């Protein structure tokens, strides 16, 4: 493999402002990003968060308003997109409808003036690898969605690009094929060792294929990290909420490291982050604006349920837990899910348990608890 192709991508203060009829709109706001050679990196976020615009700026299909994009310590801004040597897979696949599978996949090599025999051998080999052997004479309209997807991958990789860019490549496939294709994309990427940038709005997809993920919200890169790190330690309410499921409890700062969840439950989460004023407003946090405002976040699998009857009044246990009432129990096979209404949680609390919890049924008064090391605190004045 060609060692020269390995390089890291550095994006600094990248900003894109669109001029619209309603005035300028900042689609991407001062994004900083470093992606290592050979890394599979996902840009994740809801639609309109700027992830695709970021990708298109790296590809050169959009011009950045400000900021820099460097690859292998060279500025990309001065290179027209055609000269950046990138491979890209589009959401619509963008296969050339008037060319055969062979001609589509060979396009980049032909543009580079490779000799015909070499092009043919290389493309046939690649098509074989992608499970498209024997289809080289077909036209895109004769192929299934999954096959079209593979052709578009072949076209993007045939000329060994320096970066592999994918813009929501699986959005048009059915659920089963999506799982299969994402595994395949990762396998090929790792085989070639090419740096991949993958845009998706599907957090499960991002978690399953990526080495690292960058989570976007409203043009801002909120957090970058390995899937486990982002899941375990989201640094903002948005990321906590967007990645997996989570419960938010309204809380207030107490003495020392302590945080008191509404309802009187005392906790001292080991992971602590700042609660920004914007998020406090977005999530309608109780007491937003006060320096004592706080939110405690706990994943559903980390919340415990104890029937309230088991606790003796007046004992120390009585204060251990958030009082609530079970509204709904869903037996889902691999787990059981409980929905509990409480005074303290900002929404209904979701609890997931690998097996049904004995003696807990719908309508029952319960207490919810969790360990300090499973909770994340977001503190207004931290």
């Amino acid at each position: 493999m060609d060692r020269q192709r390995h390089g890291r991508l550095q994006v600094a203060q990248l900003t894109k402002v669109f001029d619209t009829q309603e005035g300028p709109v900042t689609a991407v706001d001062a994004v900083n990003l470093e992606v290592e050679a050979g890394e599979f990196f996902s840009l994740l976020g809801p639609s309109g968060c700027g992830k695709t615009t970021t990708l298109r700026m790296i590809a050169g299909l959009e011009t950045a308003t400000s900021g820099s994009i460097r690859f292998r310590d060279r500025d990309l801004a001065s290179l027209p997109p055609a000269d950046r040597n990138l491979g890209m897979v589009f959401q619509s696949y963008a296969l050339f409808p008037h060319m055969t599978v062979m001609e589509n996949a060979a396009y980049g090599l032909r543009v580079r003036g490779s000799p015909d025999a070499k092009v043919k051998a290389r493309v046939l080999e690649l098509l074989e690898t992608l499970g498209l052997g024997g289809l080289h004479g077909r036209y895109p309209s004769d192929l299934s969605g999954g096959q079209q997807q593979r052709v578009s991958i072949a076209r993007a990789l045939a000329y060994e690009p320096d970066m592999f860019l994918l813009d929501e490549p699986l959005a048009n496939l059915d659920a089963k094929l999506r799982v299969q294709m994402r595994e395949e994309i990762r396998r090929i990427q790792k085989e070639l060792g090419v740096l991949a940038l993958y845009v998706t709005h599907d957090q499960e997809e991002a978690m399953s294929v990526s080495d690292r993920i960058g989570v976007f919200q409203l043009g801002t890169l909120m957090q970058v990290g390995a899937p486990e790190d982002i899941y375990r330690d989201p640094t903002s309410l948005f990321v906590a909420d967007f990645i997996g499921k989570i419960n938010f409890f309204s809380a207030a700062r107490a003495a020392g490291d302590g945080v008191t969840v509404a309802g009187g439950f005392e906790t001292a989460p080991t992971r602590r982050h700042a609660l920004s004023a914007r998020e406090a407003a977005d999530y309608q946090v109780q007491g937003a604006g006060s320096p004592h405002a706080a939110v405690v976040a706990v994943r559903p699998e980390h919340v415990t349920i104890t029937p309230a009857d088991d606790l003796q009044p007046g004992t120390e246990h009585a204060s251990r837990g958030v009082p609530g009432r079970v509204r709904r129990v869903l037996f889902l096979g691999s787990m059981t899910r409980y929905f509990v209404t409480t005074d303290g949680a900002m929404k209904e609390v979701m609890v997931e348990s690998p097996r049904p919890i004995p003696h807990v049924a719908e309508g029952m008064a319960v207490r919810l608890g969790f360990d300090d090391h499973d909770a994340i605190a977001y503190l207004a004045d931290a």
Partner: protein
Amino acid sequence: MAAGLPARGVGAAGPDGGLPRRSRDLTPWLVGAITVLVLFVFLLYPIAKTMLSSFVPQGEALSLRNLSLSNFERFWTSPLYKSALRNSLVVSLTTTLIATLLALPAAYALARIRIPFKNLLLSLSVIPLIAPPFIGAYSWVLLLGRNGIFTHYLNDWFGITLPSIFGPFGIILALSLSYFPFVFLIVQGALAAADPFIEESAAIMGASRWRTLRTITFPLVAPSIASGAMIVFIRALGNVGVPSVLGSDYYVLPTLILFQVEGFFNLNGAAAIAFVNVLLVLTFLLVVRRLTGKRRFVTLTGTTQRSRMATSLGARIFGNVYVWGLMALALLPQAMVVFSSFAERWAGTMLPTQFGLGNYQLILGRVLQPIINSVWLSALAMLMALAFGTITAYVSLRKRFKGKWLIDLTIMLPFVLPGIVTGVAYLTTFNSGPIVLTGTAALLVFGYFVRRLAYAFRSVSASIGQVDPQLEEASTICGARWARTIRTVTLPLIAPGMLAGGILVFSTLIGELSVTIMLFSGTTKTVSIAIFEYLTSHRIAPASAMGSIVILITLALVFAASKLLGKSMADLFR
């Protein structure tokens, strides 16, 4: 694995770096600038200059100090001007009304009644649009004139005495039957595309068929009716050929322009008449827009469900008789042209007494040069219209820049300008000043080009609209430069649209009269001028023979285009 590939990408300059290649491709901007320049020189400038000249008294130089309203005074002092203005309004409004009223029942019948050979009918309806109306106009003299074939029957059997075919009756008859397909095709298309469930849901709620038609169907297609009617009005107001052939001393604005130019070479006076002509068009456009509003109803659905068809026998018989009868009537002039082209002796009798190819032999020596002229002038103009139409369509759809609306507006301008106005504008502008082209073939080619640029622009725009911009981006990312992407991706995909546009431009230019009559010279006499001269000197036999040739050529071209594109002939004109 990458051995043998030319170096590309970031590492291409070598491991030590060095300055990156900075190759900002200026071609798109250059092309855009040329397009703007061409549009300015050959469209905006002539029209602006003509409008200005209309305020300069004949014989005086164009300057701001000489501006006066003297050319317009005639519209309230001269009886000829006053009547021409009134006649123009009468002819174009009546034609628009009759054409629309003829077209609507036919369009509705096609959408709601089983009609055998429906596609044939749709293709036939294109013929009146392709064949220049003035060629068929004289047929009405042969059919309904003083010694016309039908005149006797109508008089003897029904006791009907028709008004003279020379005058408003003949002009309106000929124009209405030539132009109703504009409304027919547009409305029929809209009805065919309308979601049948909308009508069905009205029916389910208890609305009668008539109520559904009045409250649901009609409002849905009202914008289509309006745009069809606008085309008819603009065409009728600008048509110079039919009132020249059938007008006699009944003048309308276009024939008055012709009279001023041919009789007195009064260009500034002609410009003033053209100005009034344009004002009428704009007024009509504004009124129609006001009436129908900006509403557009898009009811396209993916359903293959067909609309409820009327099954009653009465409705089916009536519908079939109506549409086929209308079509027969509309094609009668064309058929008559072909028929009389074979008539060798036809004098004093109702029908010819001898048939043969004599007329074709007669014109043989004289027809070739005009046809050759028409073909190469039209072909050159077509190539230019295609080239510029494609570039402007591409720029307008793919690039974002300020002032784009101006280009879009400019290019559609000839759509609302009567051809004779373009003719006057060219005559005025290129007769003196920085560019003098009077009497040259170039003048005609540019006139044709500007006149049909919008056709090419529209067909190509539609094709480009079908091409996903991501295809071009994908090509770019694969390493293709601008020119290569256009050549290998965009052009092959829009080629069918370009071909259709080209044939449409070419076939409608072969018989073009209103621009030609202003701009032709002895060396650039076209087939339309030859026919026109025969017709206005009442030499019907050679006119019919040449007319038949023109009708045949254009029909064959449009047929070939529809076969080549796999589209129906009707779709080419919708």
